[in-house]
């Protein structure tokens, strides 16, 4: 959409900018909380150990770190009872065959019980706060409101069929609820859990290069200096310099990917010239292993300035931190201080998980700011949501090309489009998980997942929870599972891709 708007030189109305910020913003907040509690926490939290917790001590712990209302002894007893009933039913469902009791779990039973309680609370919370997404975008998941040129949700305070005072009041209530949970539950839990796992600041570093396209325009998107989350590149962990992003420097290799380029597989291609020609060379299923010397992945290998890049909340927070974003510096410094670690701790599995929390907090704070911007526009009588000047394809030039940048919750997402005779001549997406999960390139450079696993100690190759911690910290966009193969004591991983 931004790619087409860029190609056709369309400027969206200010209300459309704000609505897009709000939809993306609530998505960050909800998605990151789900990631922490439901997709990542069980790598750190031992559910079974929570059965041994003393609810009274759990209550004291919870009250010591937060003034969240659900913190009484009775409350935690009730949760523990529910958990006990569940475990004793013998049907552990999604929690069966996991790694409970593994020595890598370090939390005391009380912290585990607190986390289990919040795991359940977060499930109920997320389905409510995401209603902002439905108010503005019709439904969640898969909003149906984005248009080239703006948004399809009308604004009119005097209509019952448009964004009106009722919708705004509803959104303000939900934004408050979103922020409160993040401040009082997610962040305190994150800090409490992290304090027991500080050694994870040494593992999972990855490639040390970070790319952020930036997001949440404060005004027109073409003004790339005025994004609330700034755009930039950090190379080799050097926080003293933020390089500008030049989209021409983005190239994709297929050397180790199941594709072929007409001009050979060792030369990368810019997405405008990108090709997607399948060339599967792997074994016939069912198979046990892939030959990683040859092609071994359906992901291409995107590189920036010929370097692998990590994208996602950590990249965004580092770029913001190094660019002098005041609020983000403040929160990151606070987190570092609470954990008693230096900024170098950010380049790790722990840093990645902490950065996601920082981003959730600062984004949750912005929700009401954006809603207020919307209110200001309405006050001025500005109800515009769409620029229809290029809606009719007959107004388009014979040929056009464009690109659009977005920061999805899990990282930098770019679309490139070439339009010829009002049809798409080429369309390429370079998505966050291809940056992070990329196979090696022609030079043999590893992508972030692969690099991050190098040097990770694994106590028991049959229970590779340590590997899950690092892979999950990236929030991979794929049903991800890891198989550990004992090859001369070195863990070799195989990531399954759906």
């Amino acid at each position: 959409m931004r790619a087409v708007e860029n190609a056709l030189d369309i400027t969206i109305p200010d209300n459309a900018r704000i609505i897009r910020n709000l939809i993306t913003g609530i998505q960050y907040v909800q998605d990151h909380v789900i990631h922490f509690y439901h997709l990542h926490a069980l790598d750190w939290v031992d559910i079974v150990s929570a059965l041994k917790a003393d609810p009274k001590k759990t209550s004291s712990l919870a009250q010591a770190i937060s003034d969240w209302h659900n913190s009484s002894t009775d409350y935690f007893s009730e949760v523990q009872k529910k958990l006990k009933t569940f475990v004793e039913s013998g049907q552990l469902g999604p929690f069966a065959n996991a790694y409970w009791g593994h020595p890598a779990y370090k939390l005391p039973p009380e912290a585990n019980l607190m986390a289990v309680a919040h795991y359940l609370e977060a499930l109920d919370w997320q389905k409510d706060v995401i209603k902002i997404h439905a108010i503005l975008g019709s439904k969640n998941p898969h909003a149906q409101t984005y248009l080239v040129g703006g948004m399809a949700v009308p604004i009119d305070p005097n209509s019952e069929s448009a964004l009106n005072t009722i919708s705004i009041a509803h959104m303000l209530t939900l934004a408050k609820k979103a922020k409160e949970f993040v401040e009082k539950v997610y962040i305190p839990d994150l800090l409490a859990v992290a304090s027991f796992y500080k050694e994870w600041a040494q593992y999972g570093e990855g490639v040390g290069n970070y790319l952020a396209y930036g997001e949440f325009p404060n005004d027109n998107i073409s003004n790339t200096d005025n994004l609330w989350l700034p755009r930039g590149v950090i190379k080799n962990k050097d926080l003293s310099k933020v390089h500008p992003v030049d989209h021409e420097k983005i190239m994709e290799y297929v050397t180790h990917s199941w594709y072929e380029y007409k001009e050979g597989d060792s030369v990368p291609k810019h997405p405008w010239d990108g090709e997607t020609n399948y060339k599967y060379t792997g074994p016939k299923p069912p198979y046990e292993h892939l030959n990683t010397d040859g092609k071994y992945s359906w992901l291409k290998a995107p590189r920036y300035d010929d370097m692998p890049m990590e994208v996602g909340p950590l990249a965004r927070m580092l770029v913001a931190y190094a660019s002098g974003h005041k609020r983000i510096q403040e929160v990151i410094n606070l987190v570092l201080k609470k954990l008693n670690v230096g900024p170098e701790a950010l380049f790790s599995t722990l840093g990645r998980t902490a950065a996601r929390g920082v981003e959730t907090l600062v984004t949750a704070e912005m929700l009401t700011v954006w809603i207020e911007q919307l209110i200001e526009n309405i006050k001025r009588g500005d109800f515009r949501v769409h620029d229809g000047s290029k809606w009719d394809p007959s107004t388009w030039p014979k040929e056009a090309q464009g690109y659009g940048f977005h920061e999805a919750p899990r990282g930098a997402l770019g679309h490139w489009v070439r339009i010829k005779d009002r049809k798409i001549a080429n369309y390429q997406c370079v998505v966050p998980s291809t940056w992070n999960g990329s196979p090696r390139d022609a030079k043999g450079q590893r992508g972030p997942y692969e690099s991050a696993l190098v040097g990770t100690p694994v106590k028991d190759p049959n229970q590779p929870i340590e590997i899950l911690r690092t892979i999950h910290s990236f929030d991979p966009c794929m049903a991800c599972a890891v198989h550990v193969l004992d090859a001369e004591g070195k863990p070799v991983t195989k990531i399954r891709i759906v």
Partner: protein
Amino acid sequence: MGHRENDHIDIVGRLLKRGVSRRDFMKFCTAMAATLALPAGFATKIAEALEKARKPSLVWLEFQDCAGDTESFLRANKPTVAEIVLDVLSVDYHETIMAPAGKQAEKSRDDVVKHQKGKYIAVVEGSIPTKDGGIYCCIGGRSALDIVREVCGNALATIAVGACAWDGGWPAADPNPTGAVGVKDAVRGITLINLPGCPMNVENLTATIVHYLTFGTFPATDSHGRPLFAYGERIHDHCERRAHFDAGQFVRQWGDEGHRKGWCLYEMGCKGPETYKNCPVIRWNEGTNWPVGSGHGCIGCAAPRFWDTMTPFYKRLPKVPGFGIESTADKIGAGLAAVTAAGIAVHGIARAVKGKPKEKETTE
């Protein structure tokens, strides 16, 4: 059978809630056998009968998908997903939410297929690529086709959630490079409930499951295997903007007076007159909103092969007269196919306008 089974669910549920452990449960069965003066071996039989009171196991498979249906599942509210996971079903395999990975995760799946044969519910999300020996989607070295046949072939019933698991959805859109199909074309001879939509509305999934748990049968379906309670009526017939259609009041431009006043979106390409689903009745996110309610037309995501048949999304449906649509509804489908061919020039652009060729990345 359904009723008896549900009685058992209550009995054992109550026992468990009172803190009866598995060991005590076996003692109870032995004592029961003794009381009834049955041979000792009957304790196991009683246990087996009561085992039926186990929460039904659920195996959720993801193939060529964007996890949109999984996300939708997390928005469940009647019952909530926490209640489903803890009290209603045993969600034994779901790659996105389960704690174990790799071999341990596979064990969870294999245990159900082996020990609960014919008793568990399978849910499939995403399409299944059939071309070139299934290489386009392999999980743990096995093709999606291999997995879906084993898991669904041994299940009590399969629920295909979302457009992709129904008829291939997006991956199967022309030119369908991976030979993607839905469950109905991948596994034959199974009990299959289809809940198309992009994504499926979780209320229809929980209702289907609750229907089974309550009545012991699956809900009645149409010729596409879609439950009548959710896909029996046309969006157009329950649309809150229908009166504007009948009055000839149409939105002509995004943001115009008609758009702000909630007039009919037919001219803006709404596919409500061609789509059967209960969106206008149950809406989304606990009744918060739905596409037409937010000012955007229906894109027909619950209709067959909607990426090919319902695009261009912003071009109005052909041959729908301004008034009295009821008399011609059956003919719309035929007219539509012809216009799809004519509209192919902007077909690609319509996808770009939608903006997210792979919604996975931007949505989750």
